[in-house]
């Protein structure tokens, strides 16, 4: 086993092979193919093993990054995965979808020289390596404490809480509204970016740890939070931000106008691309416009493209302000998505059968920076233009679903329909109830949801231990 030797700085960030754009735009297979062992070891060897690693400070779950990278360099993958999993229950997911460029990798000491370590890719490598092994180890679970915790929502926040608490010997039940767990990882993020087999594997791991999983159960409908309180010592709410926004412009209810959630759910959760073998239909359109500029918009556009449509992104600012990850924007561009910047839809026009056939939009220009720090778009008068389409996907944002707050009067809510919870502990205004993830912050990221879950789990554990 070769120790990484003190040698001159290697700034050559190893590329990860991808399916070529011409090929991948016709299939739903994963775009990025992952490192080979050799590439991973090479990449890991570049890490300087900083004494005070900046990278760790920017990882929301504080993974021992130099630690796991060192193991990769030493080809000791078993130790590597152990180090990772100490802090991150879902490395195969985060390695793929974390916005690393603005987290761990952004502050790697090598970033200034343009050679920051590909932390996310290495994380993914280890997780995939583990999955390729015959057996995935199950940690020893301490004897049951007899304390019961209910987790509402099976997204990354809820899964993290469940994983942390079950490993501490508490009894955990996850209640999930849909028939599958994973939250956005399952119904939202497409197969070509995050294969569902990975999410299933992680959920299965939790099940093997002894977590009770109850799908098809809507808290607020099938049972209220109040009623759960009678049976469980503590409750964690990780219900996400699943309520889709529309723009409230004329024609939005025409056939062929979808919310991003509907479009993606048909595809991912219901596997519409396998219709009619799978029974949920999805339309094959010819000209699709996706309104929005975030990760969600990119996912919708790249899905529509794979279903054979000429696809446009309609975004009201310019390329620089796109909130999506740069990597995803570049992928979309390579695949041939057309970007219409500085455009704002004002009306959808339908045909005689009620199907959308045109978008009317305004051209915009950029003004002063707004509250978000991005330059705000200003409509240019008289610039109305029409564009032919046969489908529109509205990907302008989501907020938390009101089902739980509406049936839990004691919960203090924020202005945006979010549950108010303490940032450090996840405690809500109600006794024995914690919350975290998108339901608290509004739509954010997988790793932030997991980070919130971790903090809440810690606080719940403290509380459970304090019970005599």
């Amino acid at each position, binding site marked *: 086993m070769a120790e990484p030797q003190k040698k001159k700085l290697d700034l050559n960030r190893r590329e990860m092979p991808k399916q070529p754009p011409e090929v991948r735009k016709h299939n739903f297979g994963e775009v990025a193919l992952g490192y080979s062992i050799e590439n991973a070891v090479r990449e890991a060897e570049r890490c300087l093993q900083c004494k005070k690693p900046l990278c760790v400070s920017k990882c929301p779950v504080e993974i021992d990054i130099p630690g796991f990278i060192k193991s990769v360099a030493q080809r000791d993958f078993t130790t590597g995965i152990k180090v990772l999993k100490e802090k991150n229950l879902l490395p195969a997911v985060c390695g793929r979808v974390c916005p690393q460029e603005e987290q761990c990798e952004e502050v790697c000491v090598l970033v200034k020289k343009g050679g920051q370590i590909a932390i996310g890719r290495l994380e993914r490598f280890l997780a995939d390596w583990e999955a390729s092994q015959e057996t995935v180890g199950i940690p020893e679970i301490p004897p049951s404490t007899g304390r019961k915790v209910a987790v509402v929502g099976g997204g990354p926040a809820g899964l993290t809480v469940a994983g942390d608490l079950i490993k501490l010997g508490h009894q955990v039940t996850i209640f999930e509204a849909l028939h599958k767990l994973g939250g956005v990882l399952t119904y939202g993020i497409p197969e070509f970016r995050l294969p569902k087999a990975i999410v299933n594997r992680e959920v299965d791991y939790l099940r093997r740890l002894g977590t009770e999983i109850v799908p098809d159960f*809507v808290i607020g409908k*099938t049972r209220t939070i109040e009623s759960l309180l009678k049976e469980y010592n503590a409750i964690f709410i990780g219900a996400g931000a699943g309520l889709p926004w*529309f723009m*409230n412009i004329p024609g939005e209810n025409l056939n062929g106008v979808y919310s991003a959630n509907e479009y993606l759910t048909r595809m991912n959760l219901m596997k519409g691309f396998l219709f*009619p*073998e*799978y029974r949920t239909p999805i339309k094959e359109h010819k000209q699709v416009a996706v309104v929005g500029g975030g990760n969600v918009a990119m996912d919708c556009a790249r899905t529509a493209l794979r279903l054979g449509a000429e696809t446009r992104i309609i975004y009201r600012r310019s390329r620089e302000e796109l909130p999506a990850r740069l990597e995803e924007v570049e992928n979309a561009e390579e695949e041939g998505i057309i970007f219409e910047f500085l455009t704002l839809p004002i009306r959808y026009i339908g045909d005689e059968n*009620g199907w959308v056939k045109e978008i009317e939009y305004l051209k915009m220009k950029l003004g002063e920076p707004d509250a978000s720090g991005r330059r705000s778009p200003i409509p240019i008068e008289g610039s109305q233009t029409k564009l032919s389409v046969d489908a529109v996907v509205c990907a302008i944002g989501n907020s938390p679903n009101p089902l739980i707050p509406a049936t839990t009067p004691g919960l203090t809510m924020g202005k945006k329909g979010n549950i108010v919870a303490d940032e450090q502990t996840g405690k809500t205004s109600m006794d024995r109830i914690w919350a975290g993830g998108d339901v608290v912050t509004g739509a954010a990221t997988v790793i932030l949801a997991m980070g919130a879950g971790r903090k809440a789990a810690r606080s719940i554990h403290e509380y459970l231990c304090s019970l005599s």
Partner: protein
Amino acid sequence: MFRVIENRMIVPNIHLLEIEAPAVASEVRPGQFVILRVNEDGERIPVSIADWDREKGTIMTTILTIGGTTGDLAKVPAGADIPTVVGPLGNATAIDMFGTVLCIGGCYGIGSIYPIARALKEKGNRVITAIEARSSYLFYWEDKLEKVSDRIIHITRDGTKGFRGHVGRILEIMKASSETIDRIIINGCTFLMKRGTDASRPFGIKTIVSLNPIMIDGTGMCGVCRVTVGSNTKFACVDGPDFDGHQVDWQELLQRRKTYVREEAVAFRTSRCEEHRTKP
């Protein structure tokens, strides 16, 4: 997994399913629905809860076979399990002391109007139940409905039972027998609800309908179920399914329900249901 306790065709093309779903049975109130999936690769479809037994932990649904999924559902034998039964979803129908309430049901709605009529009766209302079908042999649950109604009215397209015609005649019938109606509640196919609403509009009688747009999750997540009521967009699964019929944009609802006709024809052809391929 949810066990199907009973599944039988009670009249041509309508199946009565009794399903073990204790969590749903213990919470359900009249006017709510569940979302079902028949198998792992199945579609999620909404169906109203027509009756329940809280002690046994079962719910009953009446299902009209019209397409792929309802066709598959008709085929599930008693004793088998289906993977998803989630609910009770939607808001319960408002039950109060209204006076005289006219409950109208057609096709699957003959079943789902039953718990509503029952609750209204228990509240002390005078309940008149009107059921509509193409022909007399398509009526079911008449005995159950009679028990919870002060008066029952049959309307058939072919005149084989009760009044001849369709539900559009209902207020004319009411007038002829000098009934004063304080509220109307309609369950069933979209056309039936629209016709009933059109009929009551000139009389200004509050008319509640249980809308049935396409749905996926039933929790307010996808927005496919949006309907225009008044001039607002509502999500039928969480804001409804009951709405004031006079405020509903019926044209839009009928149009939106047609979104997948072409694909559904494919699904229907490949339906695992062999014996019920004839459309009603």
